[in-house]
């Protein structure tokens, strides 16, 4: 079959009708663009959430991680006995174990004295639990009393800590306990904490006087080189009490991510926002196609009287939907890239715009427009030449 009359011809007519009325075309493009930006932003926030949920665990250096089974996520851990972690040393593949203490604490901003909550990570500096150069380099200084390292990528509400530090103002309070900032590292914020601080296990206990060094939040296990992580995990699973979870590195990141996307309502909110964006876009495109058919029903009836078949008009409607999808998507993509940069600078969270995301959103928008087309084609039956002439 000759492809020209089958698809090209109705598509060309659809195109000519679209560009004939440019005001209406602009309105239609704006509608698709709106849906497109909405979906991009929702997916962007969702991805930022997933990425930020794993910023801290991704920097941990260890082979296996112990957490209490009752712990929902790292930011709200349930403590377990340090003895439990020490028992892991009994396994021949285990090289070293170190406890990690976690706690949300009030950080007094240096200039305004306002207290904001941030996350405190406490561990033996020699254990080098964080794979971050500054922290490793400062392990000697971290052993001193009341010293901390501050996360430069904390939210700006904590004040210009870096500038103040360079001006010599390094002293402030965490949980009303006087501390010294000795250096900066870069981690980034998450939905749980607006800022981060790293300190020694001993200083951690000073900031959290109610805490007991015997009750730890997380245990980090390093294996001898060449030892099988999976095998050791299986062995430890049998040896240790059933109230601890043993995670590999990948499992820990998955556990943290899953908490924010599934357990916490945040993942749902962005999923919901995506669906809402598509529904709003669907309604807009449907309205456009519907009124478009209504406005052209005389012309369609004329073409029918000339011998054009119903299927020609169905293809015409879908071609219109396709053009609207493409014409709305391109400016939508450009605008979204700009908004991603803006959001990144405002939220201090990574918002990557990947090829797969671009494709996903395009497919969303395309199926949205086609669904609208599917709903609108029933209006075509109004274009009946017998009723019109």
């Amino acid at each position, binding site marked *: 079959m*000759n492809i020209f009359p089958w698809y090209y011809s109705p598509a060309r007519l659809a195109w000519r009708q679209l560009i*004939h009325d440019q005001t209406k075309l602009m309105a239609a493009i704006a509608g698709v663009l709106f849906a497109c930006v909405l979906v991009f932003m929702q997916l962007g926030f969702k991805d930022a959430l997933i990425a930020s949920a794993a910023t801290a665990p991704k920097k941990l250096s260890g082979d296996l991680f112990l957490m209490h089974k009752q712990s929902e996520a790292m930011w709200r851990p349930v403590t377990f006995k340090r003895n439990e972690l020490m028992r892991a040393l009994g396994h021949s593949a285990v090289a070293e174990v170190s406890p990690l203490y976690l706690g949300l604490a009030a950080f007094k901003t240096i200039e305004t004295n306002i207290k904001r909550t941030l996350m405190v990570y406490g561990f033996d500096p020699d254990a080098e639990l964080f794979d971050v150069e500054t922290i490793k380099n400062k392990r000697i200084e971290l052993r001193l009393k009341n010293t901390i390292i501050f996360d430069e990528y904390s939210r700006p509400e904590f004040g210009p800590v870096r500038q103040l530090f360079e001006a010599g103002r390094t002293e402030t309070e965490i949980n009303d306990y006087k501390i010294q900032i000795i250096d900066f590292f870069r981690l980034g914020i998450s939905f749980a904490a607006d800022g981060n601080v790293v300190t020694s296990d001993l200083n951690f206990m000073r900031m959290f006087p109610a805490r007991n060094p015997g009750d730890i939040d997380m245990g980090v296990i390093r294996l001898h080189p060449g030892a099988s992580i999976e095998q050791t995990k299986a062995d430890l699973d049998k040896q240790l009490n059933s109230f601890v979870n043993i995670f590999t590195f990948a499992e820990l990141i998955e556990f943290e991510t899953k908490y924010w996307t599934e357990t916490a309502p945040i993942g749902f909110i962005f999923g919901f926002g995506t669906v809402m964006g598509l529904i709003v876009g669907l309604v807009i495109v449907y309205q456009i196609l519907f009124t478009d058919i209504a406005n052209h029903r005389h012309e369609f009836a004329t073409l029918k009287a000339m011998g054009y078949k119903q299927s020609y008009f169905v293809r015409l409607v879908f071609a219109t939907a396709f053009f609207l999808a493409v014409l709305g998507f391109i400016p939508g993509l450009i605008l979204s890239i700009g908004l991603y940069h803006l959001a990144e600078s405002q939220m201090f969270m990574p918002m990557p715009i990947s090829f797969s995301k671009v494709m996903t959103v395009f497919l969303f928008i395309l199926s949205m427009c086609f669904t609208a087309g599917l709903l609108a084609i029933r209006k075509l039956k109004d274009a009946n030449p017998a009723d019109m*002439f």
Partner: protein
Amino acid sequence: MSPIIDVRNLNFSFINGEIALPVLKNVTIPIHKGEIVIMTGPSGSGKTTFLTIVGGLRQAIDGSVKVLGQQLINSTEQIKVNIRQQTGYIFQQHNLLKSLTAQQNVSMTLEMHNGMTEKERLERATEMLRAVGMGDRLHHKPDQLSGGQRQRVSIARALVGQPKIVLADEPTASLDKQSGQEAVTILKRLAKESGASILLVTHDYRILNIADRVVELEDGVINNA
């Protein structure tokens, strides 16, 4: 030779709920090849309804309507589409596509048929527009043309596919005397050249002079077939 349009004992009623409103009563009329027939009659006499039945736009169920040898009574959609494709239709309003130029509008008739390149289509359309005196308005859109010019484009569109039958529904209704006369004269000349039959319904008595035969329809009944 059998008539190209052969209507016998056609009855047609509009059904509105339980009430049937008869529009055409026992209409019998043959139209031969190359014949120009004008059907006149007051508004509401059923002229346009008759035209839409013959043109395959409306389904009738009682009587016999043979067009180009095909029975349209109780016909399938496919048969009606076939008839439409072989018929040139001229509407009361010009009914041109607003978004297309004169040339593209005329070319739309040819796009239904396979086996023609875009170039051939546009050449044929141009030729046809020249024949109706619109050769200098090929790339004008309908809203840049006068009423008479639009109707001439619409005549070109109806005739470009070289139909054996041209059906025209009050083609001069929205035109002044002079452009109306011009339009139908062009229509007549082209139809005679190509041997097409014309069935034209109108109540514009000024154009009856182009007809080979005039029939009058009154209250659904043919008075002088």
